């Protein structure tokens, strides 16, 4: 996915000299190609993220298209207010890239992990939020962000989990993308980012579940989500993000009080990463490993739920 990101950045900068890549002294190796191909459009703003976002706003006012790159723990978390006031309030077009979203930087601890970015940004108007699952979705969402007239945040999570699509999605701004769809499956998994890969693997072991990827968190295709959720027995949302304010919350807002089913949000369950370890260790610690979700999924899907009441559980 990072290679795709580099490619799409270089292509965008070559096509438009007003594209500027701003970084807060991050992006080692990732921007080698960009610096080689478009050195004049690469701006290292130093370890000064607040100023970087203000500068991006000033550049956008002057007709540039700034792409602001940082670790998601800092862009958007450290600069949330600058994003809100300097950029979004003034309806400026700036593209924010939050790299390493989720618990990718597992060994570095909670300071460099970010499972609250979607929740923090969702409430800010004039900002689209993308969460691509693989290199195809990355290209797709970046191109959508570039073509949009408003600001965007692109959440780049675990990048080496392989593709979930065989080709770039061929859809006209469609924001819910089918991954694995069966006839009349009564169960549904809606996943985003790194967890789409896990969802696909889980669904491959069963015959009664559909999997869709949600690369666009905002604006969310509410009607499409609603239609997908109708007449299901069980719905799971899967995300490497807090269960509060992320994809699961978005879906629950759409279906709550209307669609009767068993709905479970699976994500980071409101806790920090207490221990050090590799990515797989931490995902297991947060009960997001394949094995733990498989157990949960089997319990949920095989249980007999009382379908006469609306159960929306966190």
């Amino acid at each position: 996915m990072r290679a795709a990101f580099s490619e799409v950045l270089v292509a965008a900068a070559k096509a438009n000299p007003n594209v500027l890549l701003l970084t807060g002294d991050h992006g080692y190796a990732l921007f080698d190609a960009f610096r080689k191909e478009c050195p004049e459009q690469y701006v290292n703003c130093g370890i000064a993220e607040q100023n970087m976002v203000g500068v991006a706003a000033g550049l956008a006012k002057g007709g540039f298209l700034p792409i602001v790159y940082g670790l998601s723990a800092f862009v958007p978390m450290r600069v949330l207010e600058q994003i809100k006031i300097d950029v979004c309030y003034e309806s400026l077009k700036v593209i924010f890239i939050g790299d390493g979203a989720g618990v990718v930087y597992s060994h570095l601890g909670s300071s460099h992990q970010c499972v609250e970015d979607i929740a923090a940004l969702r409430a800010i108007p004039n900002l689209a939020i993308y969460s691509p699952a693989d290199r195809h979705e990355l290209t797709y969402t970046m191109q959508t962000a570039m073509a949009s007239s408003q600001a965007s945040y692109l959440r780049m999570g675990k990048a080496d989990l392989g593709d979930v699509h065989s080709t770039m999605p061929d859809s006209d701004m469609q924001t819910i993308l089918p991954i694995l769809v069966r006839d009349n499956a009564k169960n549904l998994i809606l996943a985003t980012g790194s967890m789409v890969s896990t969802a696909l693997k889980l669904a491959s072991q069963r015959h009664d579940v559909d999997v869709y990827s949600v690369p666009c968190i905002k604006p969310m295709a509410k009607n499409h989500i609603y239609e997908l959720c109708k007449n299901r027995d069980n719905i799971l949302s899967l995300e490497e993000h807090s269960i509060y304010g992320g994809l699961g919350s978005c879906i629950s807002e759409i279906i709550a009080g209307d669609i009767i089913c068993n709905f479970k949000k699976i994500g980071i369950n409101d806790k920090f990463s207490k221990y050090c370890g590799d990515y797989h260790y931490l995902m297991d610690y947060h009960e997001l490993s394949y094995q733990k979700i498989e157990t949960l999924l089997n319990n949920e899907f095989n249980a007999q739920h009382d379908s006469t009441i609306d159960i929306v559980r966190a």
Partner: protein
Amino acid sequence: MTQVFDAKSLRKTVLDMAFSGATVHIGCAFSIIEIMAVLYRNHLRFPDDAHAHPNRDYLVLSKGHGVMAQYACLHEKGWLSSADIKNYFNNGTQLKGLADAHVPGVEVTSGSLGHGLSVGVGMAYGAQRRKTNQMCYAIVGDGEINEGSIWEAALFASHFKLDNLIVVVDENGFQAMGSTDEVLKLGNIMEKFTAFGFESIQLDGHDESQIDDAIHQLKSKKNGKPKAIIAKTIKGKGISFMENNNIWHYTRLSSETYAAAMAELEEK
């Protein structure tokens, strides 16, 4: 109508607004009146008199709570109407208590302190990249430079050699809850900006000829250095009972204080 940006008239407009809207931040506006007047009268270039002209000079009011001083100038520019001034703070009106870039002639939404300078730096950097001769003037409060982002912006301006940027520090010595010495000691502000790579001048922020000379001098120097003017000012300047009396950060005018302030301006 000739635009003279007379300081006394601007202060009257501020008083009218503050009284009509029952608003605060009067002292914060009065300390920057002469700075605003000199900038609008002698320096800010607006081709075709268009506030949004792409080749205009930029004036960023980073201390957005002083915005009534700018409204008074924008009124004289003709970009705000007398009704805008008269109806200040009425429901459904456009002018807020802090600078808002949706207002014609206001470049940056500020008031949340420490934002405006960075945006101004970005505008100056954009002008430098486009190789235009646009200037960017950014007015920051001395209290405002408590914010770390101000110093991030100063580093950036110096590193990228933004000699089209003039930062004006309104050093009135007060912030919301007391004097700057009491709240968070700033030390020598000029030395700080100089240490950050700025070419700096300290002057009397109410002496229009000093301000004018300094701006002429600084903007003519294309030496790869951003510029800073440390303007020693008086919070509440122009009204004896407001000067250096920090209650006028938050106090609203009564009929009596409005009349007394207006009478004092008339006498001058």
